């Protein structure tokens, strides 16, 4: 089992949700987060003075999938969340030791 954490543009959330639903990937957890990348944010102009906005609003998705599904899910997120401009975000993939469904107590891949 793998955990996929995707940091994407908030404006892309609806498209990504739909793309995941289309490939029958249903369970996601979404949080609104702030962050920055290599460019250290963006610059905004107020009354002729420039202000650096060094933390930008982003949307963070957590998705737990079976190993075989990782590629399809990641490809779909990249395809839908990509604009090609700076600030599209990142995806992190890591292994998950165990999963428990609280309602039934089931464990492992059955619980995903």
């Amino acid at each position: 089992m793998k955990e996929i954490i995707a940091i994407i543009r908030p404006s892309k959330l609806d498209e990504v949700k739909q793309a995941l639903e289309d490939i029958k990937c249903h369970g996601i957890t979404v949080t609104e987060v702030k962050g920055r990348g290599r460019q250290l944010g963006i610059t905004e102009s107020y009354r002729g003075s420039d202000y650096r906005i060094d933390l930008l609003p982003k949307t963070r998705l957590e998705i737990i999938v079976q190993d075989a599904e990782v590629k399809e899910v990641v490809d779909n997120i990249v395809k839908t969340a990509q604009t090609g401009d700076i600030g599209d975000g990142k995806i992190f993939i890591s292994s998950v030791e165990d999963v428990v469904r609280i309602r039934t107590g089931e464990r492992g891949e059955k619980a995903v």
Partner: protein
Amino acid sequence: MVATAVLNSGDTAWMLTATALVMLMTVPGVALYYGGLVKRENVLNTLFMSIIAFAITSVIWVIYAYQFAFGTDVNGLIGNGANILFFGITSNTLAPLAPTIPVTIYSAFELVFAAITVALISGAVVGRLKFKAWLAFVPLWITIVYVPISHWVWGGGWLAKLGALDFAGGTVVHLDCGIAALVLCIYLGARKDTKLLPHHLGYSVIGAALLWFGWFGFNAGSALTAGGLASSAFLVTNTATAAAMISWMLIDIIKTGKPTVLGAITGAVCGLVAITPASGYVSVEGALILGFITSFFSYYAMTWLKPRFGYDDSLDVFAVHGVSGLWGALATGLFAAPFINPAGVGLFYGNPMQMVWQLIDIGTVIAWSGGWTLVIAFVIDKTIGLRVTDDEELEGLDTTLHEESGYRI
């Protein structure tokens, strides 16, 4: 001037309306305009400074301030305080300076002007002034700075006798509060973090819109009658404001490539300020020119003068009100057209001396407001203290001074 004073119900109806319109400029116009520009942890403190300034001014105005500002002139310097607490004034007494309306509504009209003038100063010092210091500053400043100046220009005092023209307050209101704001923010020192972003520009758009709307009462009401002069003032006020909004937007586009909403509303306020002293004297052509130009002066005061001298006028009260007010006062001396109002003949209509009277008015207001504001700031600093602690400033004044916060999320 009316030979025999007779109440005119049309004039009275308009002045009741105009007074309520000007009230809207402070509560909630200025409050929202400033409230949106500060950080979220200071929004309530910023709103509060404007609304409490209105309440304090309202009380001292009826007790004594109105009488000393607009009572019978004594040697051109101050009003005679004989009618303190409106002693001897009945509901039918007509205003000596506006003989077709009751003195009660005339005094209320002057009250709302005094209130917005002092409320505007708060923009320069938001986020770091003690609230208790503000509660002391408001009555002291109205009494010592505003009352004499408004008497000299509008109450039949020496500047009026000299011939200085200020229809609705380019010097009395805007240059006055702009200079006081500059002095107070220099005395107080910069914020710990001068790169704070506006937390809710939507508030500021609503606030600026209410200012624009209320300003029709401010300028057209300053005719003190309902007729041609008020109507002319109404039209030129709108014209200059629109021209200034467009010129600020053009500056934005030229400088950064993109028009900004904050720039547009700032330009509009600059236009409102600049047309204020001129509104009862200039033609539509004059209003277009003076409105279009004023944004350039205020823009450079904000982006060049402020960084060069390093003062932290947080919400640019000096750049907007001081600089556009000064330009408006000068422009009145240039553009005043006798066919609009026979009381004002400017340089372009053959009266160069008008510029001299305007400069004397400007110099007097700068010196009086700047000097006394410094004294008031010094006295409050040595007694109550002016500035909050660094911790309070960083955490925000809503929770530290008022124990409440503007947002639950």
